[in-house]
């Protein structure tokens, strides 16, 4: 704690800590000093000169946003001299602010307007000049009106704080303006459209294109909730006018949101949403009443249960629903129908890594974004943080700007890899070799935490097994020289506060174990990792037991059955449940009915042609979703689902924080929890909740709130490195990597139905070639290519970009057809497919050739 000092502001004595800015000290004393360039979330620049105050003994007037208090300082914020100076500056600014407040979206929220009013400026003494700029409308989201810009520099500051740093002042004198370095449109200058600049602009110079003339800030009803895109789970405040979503911001103007969080919400109000249930009649999905659809679905499922037993029915749920819905879903299947055949998208999106991590390190090793901002050394493994988990990306960039060191292991030349001290561009699938090599170098270079490591089990075994590891083999498999690994090990090992950040859905279980080993070896005070999660509620979905092998609370089926039978008041199935792959394999024979909520396995699951075939062979399929997905198209009954923006409940983000989700608009369709309970009731299992709150209460009483389990004993895991993913061969010589893009998200269902589609070219319909492969395969940018795997082929267009090393290709995960290519073979332990690395062949031209 810094020392307390006493200052006198307008005659009032206040105690504040030393180093406080005058403007802050005044605020604590309840005095608002007018300010335009100053913003609490940004470093002060002192450029607008509106916040001038008088400080006794100081020469001239002092900018209160840059001057720090000193003990005994006497400050006057409202003398005639101060007001005069302030009025003068405001008049000057107004003389160059030629807009019509009448039709400005910022009217009523404009800070310039506010202070002009407070100081009673009716008309500026200076001749008003219209700067005469054209409004910059060159990008789809942010309109920049230079005629209104007061050059406060807030947007420049925030762009830097968020790690983008792509806009700055250009030119001088009166023609100074804020622009990208060559005054090119944002999208050509590396802007990721975090929209933070919009949030901090004090005037109407930056406005969201789609919000123009649709409602002013003071007309908005604001609701705080959580972003339902990626697993960062950023806090969002929705502004609603007349029941329509106008905008989203963070809780405070400086809070980061990515393009999805900021601009990706119109999908909620997209007219293509399913609002009414559909029942397939003569092969055609036809609108029905809600009652009719529930009744029909329940009856058909009951029929199947009666005829073939409860285990002929299965359920699959996405990883982006609330805890409450996930909980009800599995309860319905287990207690209502009587089967453990339950699975969720979590299995495809990192659940195996989470389970492994839990076993190796306990959840206590998981750090928060704030923790990341404070580490001095980071190791990123397969985590395209700025693209896939943008808030983590910002945390990493902030750590870097305070001097942290970075080692990146990634086949892709990601944006963050450009900032790395050591970038290890490994061959796709060679992570296990790289990490084993790093472990060995950490040990050999003696840059590890011996004291901590000794306390962990199997340390001697680890040393022995690494002793046998041949670095030549590591070099051969990964294409990385051992010198690089040695340097990386030294850099990382010498860090005092370290963290390993990795993409949970991209690492193999073995890779996960190696990450745990490195973390233990360099643990210092404790192991620390951040598994990045793509889905907004992956943790919650797992925790709520929406998986064959666990009850809520990640409790094993056999161990916890008695407890749950007691609370749920029914006999629960003994038979182990099937994972999604196993269910798919049994469809048409052992599995005849399916209930799928908020998930589209036909697009999301690997080997999608066979998924579609399997689903078609069911006797009865109920799909509950917001859009008519490929899966829903195959359903016999489609029930409308709602988005998180219409839901109440909780989720658990990647940092292990439980966050409250609130409906920001009236749901367009029946809520998911009501639909599940309605279906259950019709199937003779009445759950009888009257609100989401009651479900939450039951969860709490049963499984306690999700929380980190701290561990006090650890053990190393011995790993024999293997190549992960599908191995290329003569026929399929290349590796295709499926990954995220900045403006697409996962299967693309939301982003494609939102205005983000304006920025994701061809809705992800392309494959990235590096220039070397492009030359040898005679491929030009934009030309048609066919990608073929052991499962099928896809025709798409080529994009040339040096992102991956030679022989490797990239396909956006929001590509419609990427599921056709991927392999669905699963590992025996966690039954999850390694579907992001696919062996393929590539040829020029369409599929018919």
């Amino acid at each position: 704690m810094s020392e307390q000092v006493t200052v006198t502001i307008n005659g009032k004595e206040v105690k504040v800590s030393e180093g406080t800015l005058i403007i802050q000290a005044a605020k604590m004393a309840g005095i608002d000093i007018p300010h335009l360039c100053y913003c609490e979330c940004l470093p002060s620049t002192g450029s607008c000169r509106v916040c001038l105050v008088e400080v006794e003994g100081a020469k001239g007037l002092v900018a209160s946003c840059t001057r720090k208090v000193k003990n005994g300082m006497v400050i006057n914020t409202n003398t005639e001299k101060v007001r005069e100076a302030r009025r003068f500056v405001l008049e000057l600014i107004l003389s160059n602010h030629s807009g019509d407040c009448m039709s400005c979206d910022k009217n009523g929220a404009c800070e310039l307007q506010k202070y002009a009013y407070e100081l009673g400026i009716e008309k500026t003494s200076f001749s008003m000049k219209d700067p005469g700029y054209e409004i910059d409308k060159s990008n789809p989201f942010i309109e920049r009106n230079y005629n209104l810009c007061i050059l406060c520099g807030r947007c420049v500051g925030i762009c830097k704080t968020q790690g983008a740093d792509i806009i700055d002042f250009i030119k001088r004198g009166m023609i100074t303006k804020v622009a990208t370095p060559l005054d090119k449109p944002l999208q050509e200058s590396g802007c990721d459209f975090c929209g933070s600049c919009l949030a901090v602009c004090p005037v109407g110079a930056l406005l969201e294109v789609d919000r123009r003339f649709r409602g002013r800030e003071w007309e908005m009803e604001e609701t705080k909730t959580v972003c339902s895109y990626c697993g960062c789970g950023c806090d969002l405040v929705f502004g609603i006018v007349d029941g329509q979503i106008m905008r989203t911001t963070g809780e405070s103007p400086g809070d980061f949101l990515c393009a999805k969080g900021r601009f990706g919400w119109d999908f909620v109000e997209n007219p293509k949403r399913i609002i009414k249930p559909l029942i397939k009649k003569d092969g055609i999905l036809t609108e029905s009443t809600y009652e009719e659809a529930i009744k029909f679905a329940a009856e058909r499922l009951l029929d199947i249960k009666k005829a073939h037993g409860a285990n002929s029915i299965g359920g699959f749920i996405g990883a982006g629903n609330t805890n409450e819905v996930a909980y009800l879903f599995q309860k319905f299947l287990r207690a209502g129908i009587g089967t453990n055949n339950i699975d969720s998208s979590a299995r495809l999106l990192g659940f195996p890594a989470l389970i492994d991590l839990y076993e190796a390190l306990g959840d206590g090793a998981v750090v928060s974004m704030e923790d990341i901002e404070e580490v001095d050394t980071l190791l990123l493994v397969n985590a395209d943080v700025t693209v896939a988990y943008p808030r983590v990306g910002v945390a990493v960039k902030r750590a870097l700007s305070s001097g942290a060191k970075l080692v990146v292991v990634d086949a892709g030349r990601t944006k963050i890899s450009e900032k790395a001290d050591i970038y290890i561009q490994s061959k796709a699938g060679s992570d296990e070799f790289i990490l084993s090599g790093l472990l060995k170098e950490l040990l050999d270079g003696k840059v590890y935490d011996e004291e901590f490591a000794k306390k962990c089990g199997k340390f001697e075994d680890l040393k022995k097994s690494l002793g046998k590891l041949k670095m030549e083999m590591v070099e051969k498999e990964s294409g990385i020289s051992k010198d690089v690994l040695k340097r990386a090990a030294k850099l990382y090992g010498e860090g005092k506060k370290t963290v390993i950040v990795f993409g949970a859905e991209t690492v193999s279980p073995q890779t996960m174990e190696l990450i745990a080993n490195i973390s233990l070896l360099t643990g210092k005070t404790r192991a620390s990792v951040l598994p990045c999660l793509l889905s907004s509620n992956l943790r919650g979905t797992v925790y709520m037991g929406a998986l064959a092998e666990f009850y809520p609370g990640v409790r094993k089926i056999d161990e916890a059955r008695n407890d749950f039978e007691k609370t749920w008041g029914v006999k629960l199935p003994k038979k182990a449940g099937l994972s999604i792959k196993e269910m798919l394999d049994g469809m048409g024979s052992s599995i005849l009915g399916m209930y799928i909520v908020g998930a589209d396995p036909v697009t999301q699951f690997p080997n999608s042609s066979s998924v579609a075939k399997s689903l078609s062979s069911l006797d009865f399929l109920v799909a509950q979703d917001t859009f008519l997905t490929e899966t829903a198209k195959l359903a016999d009954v489609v029930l409308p689902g709602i988005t998180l923006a219409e839901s109440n409940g909780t989720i658990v983000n990647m940092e292990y924080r439980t966050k409250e989700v609130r409906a920001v608009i009236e749901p367009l369709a029946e809520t998911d929890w009501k639909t599940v309970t309605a279906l259950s009731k019709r199937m003779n299992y009445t759950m009888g909740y009257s609100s989401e709150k009651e479900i939450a209460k039951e969860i709490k009483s049963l499984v306690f709130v999700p929380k980190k389990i701290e561990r006090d004993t650890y053990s190393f895991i011995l790993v024999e490195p293997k190549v992960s993913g599908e191995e290329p061969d003569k026929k399929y010589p290349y590796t295709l990597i499926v990954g995220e893009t900045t403006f697409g998200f996962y299967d693309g269902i939301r982003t494609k139905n939102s205005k983000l589609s304006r920025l994701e070219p061809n809705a992800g319909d392309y494959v990235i070639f590096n220039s070397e492969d492009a030359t040898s395969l005679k491929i030009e940018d934009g030309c048609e290519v066919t990608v073929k795997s052991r499962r099928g082929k896809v025709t798409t267009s080529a994009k040339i970009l040096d992102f991956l090393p030679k022989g490797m290709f990239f396909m956006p995960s929001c590509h419609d057809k990427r599921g056709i290519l991927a392999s669905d073979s699963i590992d025996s332990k966690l039954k999850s497919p390694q579907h992001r690395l696919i062996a393929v062949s590539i040829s020029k031209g369409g599929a018919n050739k």
Partner: protein
Amino acid sequence: MVKGKQTRVFICTGTGCVLSGSMKVKAAFKSELKKRKISEIDIVQTGCHGFCQQGPIVVIQPEGFFYPRVSVENVPRIVEEHLVGGKVVEDLLYEDSLTNKKIPLYKDINFYKKQNRIVLKNCGLIDPEDIDDYIEHGGYKAFKKVLSEMTPEKVIEEVKASGLRGRGGAGFPTGLKWDFARKAPGDIKYIICNADEGDPGAFMDRSVLEGDPHSILEGMVIAGYAIGASEGYIYVRAEYPLAVKRLGIAVEQAKKKGFLGKNILDSSFNFNVKIKEGAGAFVCGEETALIASIEGRRGMPRIRPPFPAQSGLWGKPTNINNVETLANVAWIIVNGVDKFTSIGTEKSKGTKIFAVTGKVKNGGLVEVPMGTTLREVIFDICGGVKDDKEFKAVQIGGPSGGCLPAKFLDTSIDYESLAKTGAIVGSGGMVVMDKSSCMVDLARYFLAFTQKESCGKCAPCRIGTKRMLEMLQRMTRGESSEEEVVLLEQLAEDVKVSSLCGLGQTASNPVLTMLKYFRKEFEEHVKEGRCRAGVCSELITYVIKDNVCKGCGVCKKHCPVGAIRGEKKQPHEIDVTKCVKCGICMQHCSFDAIYVAK
């Protein structure tokens, strides 16, 4: 008779002389000597002599015969008659403008006689591209002394005692600044030499950079030793290619001689100098903007504190000094504090260089002791106003300085006395004006410069200077009013107190002093639409009422540009294309026949 080996031909290759053709003159000397197979006479290219109006300048050493305005055609005669014949070429010698007498020797020329050259001591006398020449003239002696005999604290003490103040404009005591930087916590510290020299019309720093680059390096290494820095930057504007080149040569030579690098002169002191070319924005001369620019960011000033001495380049304690400031340092060390403090006034010690331009007979670089009066500089050294016209005003300190009328001619040049008048010592620009200069137009000119060069960061400077400029533009076009003159003054005051950096804080100085000392001219512009200097030709027109005109011809006689036509006894007429709107005709008409048409 061919003279001995020591005869050398010094040809000025400062930018001024190069522009007037000294490189051709140098080539002519070379070929002429070659033609005559004379190899004993060296041709030495030197830096600026300061007397740029007289360029290209050739000096024959060791005697110091001074040939001004030498053309290629003159070269054979100088070689034939002077170098070979041993006889001074009388008609090519410099002629004193007052006495019309020929003056053969450099040192006897009034221009030099009254100067006291400390900083410029070597300029024009040594070859700036030859470190040995510098050493022969006592160079690096100070540095050797510092390194072998003085502790850093002692060096700072000396500089403090000398009373040396920053020559970059603000006049901050240099020793104190070094002391702050020395005492600031941190292992890594920097020295920056500010060679941005952005004032239009100023070329003091350029001349030192081009004429005596080692004196700056020597100042820098001494400063580095004193504050505990091991790296220095010279931020020099890219528009000074010759300076950049010579600095580069100087750094290389100093490295070879062991004055720069690791373990300098076998001590544990390390120091290196990097040259950074600036893009030539005026504001980049402001220290925090300059630092930003070196760091590769946009050159924009930031709020101080923290001052560079606490947190400067890359956030490390940094001492930044002007070229001229640094060039004083070695002299002080070698000649001693007492000698330095004996020059100047009580609070302003040493000398100051001025670049005197404008309507003056012998413009150029002038180094005078602090305390010299304006009159001495303008009249005694520079020979007075051109064409012996009446002195009207002098602008000191460039666009940040003030404009003083004749009543201040006897003001002593020192920080305190000038500040009292509203002007500043500034970096050393001095523009002399006669009656043909319009003060309103001049104010407009300076503001046009500052407003264009405003970095655009803070509102008062960015918008305020623009609004002032617009008002002044209206005044020069006769579209203004008396109220606006009042508003202009208010605006100028407000910009001064509320701007963020020195640029905005001083941008009003020209306007404010002009309003203070030449207010009448402003009023004439706005009230009568008259520009007495005849500069603001866009002002309203003068018309002769033909029914009132008696055809007396008085106006015709007085019109300075012959814009009035008319037969005797016939109504006269003003030719608007020739009229410069000075209003003289109207003043002289006894019949009120001339009026101003708006």
